[in-house]
């Protein structure tokens, strides 16, 4: 809360009676950014909603069609299928990084040599250019020459078709997504671990609790709020995931890994059906908001029970 902006006219007059008082304004600082945000974020949004009500194909005249584009969605089998792919892809891409990220955070919370440097290495997958890593994963997934099937053969497992088989394509892509985004969960949970007081651990040690008990009954409840934040962010990013899927499979084989975002790309920029594409964009956004609201609701329900254990 800023004191300066709240100063009352009377008080200012006491300090500098000679100058004319004018309400202190920070607006000039914000206006340039406001113009940019209006132009590249708000305008596209308003325009998208308006376009979604039109029959709008590149090269032909636009016709107002009301909600027809929206009514077309539930009858479009490719869209319905894409929703299913998106949900399963998202569920896996939230859960796996949460599990691995929490484990990694517990390890990085310990003190060891070169921790900062190793943490830098650990977060490299999430900072690297997605298309570049997608390219290398594509080579690693190669059924004949890929290194992954070689690694499987070392432990005696049969070779897989990975992204070239409709039933394994989504888990394979989730593998990449998990590899890429576990570091973000780790960083958020690590921040949570740093905020935990040491007293509960000391008393647990006196009581003779083992490692698992300490983790289950002290660490986990205390980092719950951070896990929710991580889960929320992960959910938003996983739903929107595009680069990895598009660069590795383009939604294939067939349409086995076509998520809403990939389908949206096809509709808008391959078929140039911009009206229908806009309707997909709007529904897609609402879906993300709905999922976020669902997580918030779960958080409320669950935090209430875990907060009984202590201040979180």
């Amino acid at each position: 809360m800023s004191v300066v902006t709240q100063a009352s006219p009377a008080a200012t007059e006491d300090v500098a009676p000679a100058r004319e008082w004018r309400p202190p304004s920070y607006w000039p600082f914000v206006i340039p950014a406001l113009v940019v945000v209006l132009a590249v974020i708000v305008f596209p949004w308003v325009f998208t909603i308006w376009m979604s009500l039109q029959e709008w194909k590149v090269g032909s005249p636009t016709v107002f069609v009301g909600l027809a584009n929206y009514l077309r969605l539930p009858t479009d089998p490719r869209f319905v299928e894409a929703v299913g792919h998106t949900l399963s892809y998202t569920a896996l891409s939230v859960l796996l990084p949460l599990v691995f990220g929490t484990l990694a955070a517990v390890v990085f919370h310990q003190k060891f040599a070169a921790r900062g440097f190793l943490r830098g290495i650990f977060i490299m997958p999430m900072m690297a250019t997605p298309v570049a890593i997608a390219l290398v994963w594509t080579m690693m997934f190669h059924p004949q020459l890929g290194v992954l099937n070689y690694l499987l053969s070392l432990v005696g497992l049969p070779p897989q078709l990975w992204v070239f088989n409709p039933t394994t394509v989504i888990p394979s892509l989730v593998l990449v997504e998990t590899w890429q985004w576990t570091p973000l969960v780790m960083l958020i949970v690590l921040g949570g671990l740093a905020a935990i007081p040491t007293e509960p651990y000391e008393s647990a040690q006196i009581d003779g609790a083992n490692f698992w008990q300490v983790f289950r009954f002290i660490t986990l409840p205390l980092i719950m709020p951070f896990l929710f934040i991580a889960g929320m962010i992960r959910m938003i990013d996983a739903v929107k995931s595009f680069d990895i899927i598009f660069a590795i499979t383009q939604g294939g084989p067939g349409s086995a890994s076509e998520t809403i975002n990939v389908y949206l790309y096809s509709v808008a920029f391959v078929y140039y059906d911009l009206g229908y594409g806009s309707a997909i964009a709007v529904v897609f956004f609402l879906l993300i908001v709905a999922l976020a609201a669902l997580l918030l609701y779960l958080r409320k329900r669950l935090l209430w029970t875990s907060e009984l254990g202590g201040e979180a």
Partner: protein
Amino acid sequence: MNPRQILGQIGLWLSVFVIVSPAILFFLWMASLSLKFEIDNASYPPVFFPEHIAWKNYADVFASNRFLTYFTNSLVVTGCATALAMLVGVPAGYGIARMAAHKSAIVILIARITPGLSYLIPLFLLFQWLGLLGTLVPQIIIHLVVTVPIVIWIMIGYFETTPLELEEAALIDGATRWQVFRHVALPIARPGLAVAFILAVIFSWNNFVFGIVLAGRETRTLPVAVYNMISFDQLSWGPLAAAALIVTAPVLLLTVLAQRQIVAGLTAGAVKGG
């Protein structure tokens, strides 16, 4: 050290090794792919250390005259989009923090949630109508969708933690708000500026989705160029991996060198573009 502590140390290093190895092994494998001739890349079982190192793969990438064009394009787009974002975003972060206008953060949040593709449809039409397609301007403008929210978000966080006393003293001494911002607030927030700058650069550099729609043959950025190589020559893995490594090398270098700032920025805002 007693045996128990030694065991604990061994366990700790073992788990560190297990956790870090997926990242290390992946990038080592990427480097290995990029330094092998086709005969080694196509051999089974895979060769990790080749007998002959194919520096030629890198030479080939640099020698193609298009590569320099795409590199320059990436540099211009990321450079301009980041510079513009800093120019408008830093003062905005300051203004929002001082006005305590927390509701304005909702716009940033919406920008964070919105899929990058939804911006593309209307802006694509706008750029087409303005006749800008075929230049780098559309990409610079649309990259602002990524960079501006990052910069504003991180700067709000920083300016909220910088002390107000100095600024108030300067105001009483008759400094204008702009002078206070320029000479008092900005120098203190320098670490925040570094964080915002680094993250804006990385996420703009990495961006792919805006490029595939807006870039023409001459205006491709590096990620788009690499993607086009995939469909182009599916089987020459060496040069492909070399190109991929060249594209992402600046980012990886920045990540290791500035890991402290990056971690600070990511845990503060958990931002990601597009």
